[in-house]
């Protein structure tokens, strides 16, 4: 069904229509939330809150890109969740799913064809990258995730982040530079091709 039709039906109180939108966007929303939050359970909480918020604010949607509008609510939910967790720190011992599953969950494994050692290295690299993302200020992090992880253009990122285009541009550049510097601390994890020149990062 067309997205606009689903939105209109959801506006009329059709929860099934709204849930169709949820199913369509939940992976994207969760990904953005996870990359911003850096934590699985927190990302799940933020995503759920975001969808509830989207349903409640659906009558405020004034057309345009529903995806951008939804992701803006997701990022705001992430900010709220981060603030909440800053006040009440939660330190999980290991990544754990809502339903009790652990790292064995398939999505933690990027490539099933890798041998265990390579698989481990890849996971470590991903964790290192995520660690470097988490080191960024949340505003820089959001822009970096939207553009470099999710592949959005500047305009959409600007709409989602609610900041001017120029701000997106400068934040993204600085975020990339910081991640680049951060990754030098994990140079042993980086593939040869991606090992950076220390002189340039100085």
């Amino acid at each position, binding site marked *: 069904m067309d997205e606009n039709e689903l939105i209109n039906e959801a506006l009329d109180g059709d*929860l099934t229509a*709204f*849930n169709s939108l*949820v*199913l369509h966007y*939940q*992976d994207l*929303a*969760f*990904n953005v939330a*996870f*990359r911003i939050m850096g934590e*699985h359970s927190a990302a*799940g909480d933020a*995503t*759920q809150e975001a*969808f*509830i918020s989207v*349903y*409640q604010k659906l009558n405020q949607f004034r057309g345009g890109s529903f995806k951008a509008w939804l992701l803006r609510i997701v990022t705001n939910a992430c900010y709220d969740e981060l603030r909440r967790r800053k006040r009440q720190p939660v330190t999980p011992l290991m990544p754990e*799913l*809502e*339903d009790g*599953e652990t790292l064995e*969950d*398939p*999505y933690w494994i*990027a490539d099933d064809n890798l041998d265990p050692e390579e698989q481990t290295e890849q996971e470590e690299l*991903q964790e290192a*990258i*995520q660690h470097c*993302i988490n080191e960024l200020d949340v505003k820089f992090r959001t822009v*970096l995730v939207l*553009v*470099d*992880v999710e*592949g959005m*253009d*500047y305009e959409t990122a600007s709409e989602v982040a609610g900041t001017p285009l120029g701000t997106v*541009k*400068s934040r*993204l*550049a*600085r975020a*990339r*530079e910081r*991640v*680049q510097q951060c*990754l030098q601390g994990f140079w042993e994890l*980086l593939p040869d*091709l*991606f090992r*950076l*020149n220390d*002189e*340039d*990062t100085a």
Partner: protein
Amino acid sequence: MTSKREWTLELNTLSAFLDGELKKSERQHLQTRLAQEPELRERLENLRKTKVLLGSLPHLDAPRNFTLTPEMVKVREKKQPWSSVLQLASAMAAVFLVALVGLELVLNTPHAYRANDAMPLMESASDVEEPAAEPLIIWGFPDSGGLGGAGGTDMKSGVVSESFSAEEPLVGMDDLSSDEAEETMVEMETPAEGEPDDAVAEMETFAQQEEDSEAEQDSTSLEADSDEEDSETEMRAAPATDEDSLILGLNLEESGETIARSEPGAGAAEPVTTARDPNPFRLAQIILAVIAVGGGVALWILRKK
């Protein structure tokens, strides 16, 4: 050695170049520089690697469905009816309030005008004689001997003239004077009679007969207006409290005469107070205003919460 500001500007340009977000002129300028400056080329390359690394992060599937259940949105559904009811009540109250104020203005304007006009009459009457004004004029029935001769033989007691002057503002006859008494027209409903229209017709007929037979009689005309109800109500109530054997305004002892009943004790002022004291308009306006404002404030508080 480039300054920090130049370094940052250069970084922004390189980053935008990677994403193809540079204007054509900026891109050409940067390409020229890149061809000449290996250090700048290497910096660009490092940024590109970082971008590729970030882009290599796997796309995760949602660990579960985030679909909403009716319980999750219950809060919203619960709030909506209250909000709607308050909105509706507040809006309706505001509309009725405006309508009521308008209606009151329409009704009160002529009333106030007449009351003001009547004041000199009332004052002149009270100057001439002591009040003893009666609020009611009840005409006798045709078979009692006459109707419409308001002055009648009772004029000697001054009752009728007092009745007119004091009663006028009450029954809406303030635009009349005793000089206009030739124009006799009685419109009156007798509660004891069957159809009001029949009674009025009968009374008009008898009034005409009275005119023919007693030319010097003073008379008055009663105009039905918005205050007629009040005067009629008083007229209906009068016979029940009559202690002077006046039945429906007919004095049996003075058959053949038009009988005007006067009850000074009942007072001319009483009908005025009964007509004005319980102001239903004011009461309704206050209630509506409270609902409108209260509803608005409650809505505001609910939305804040």
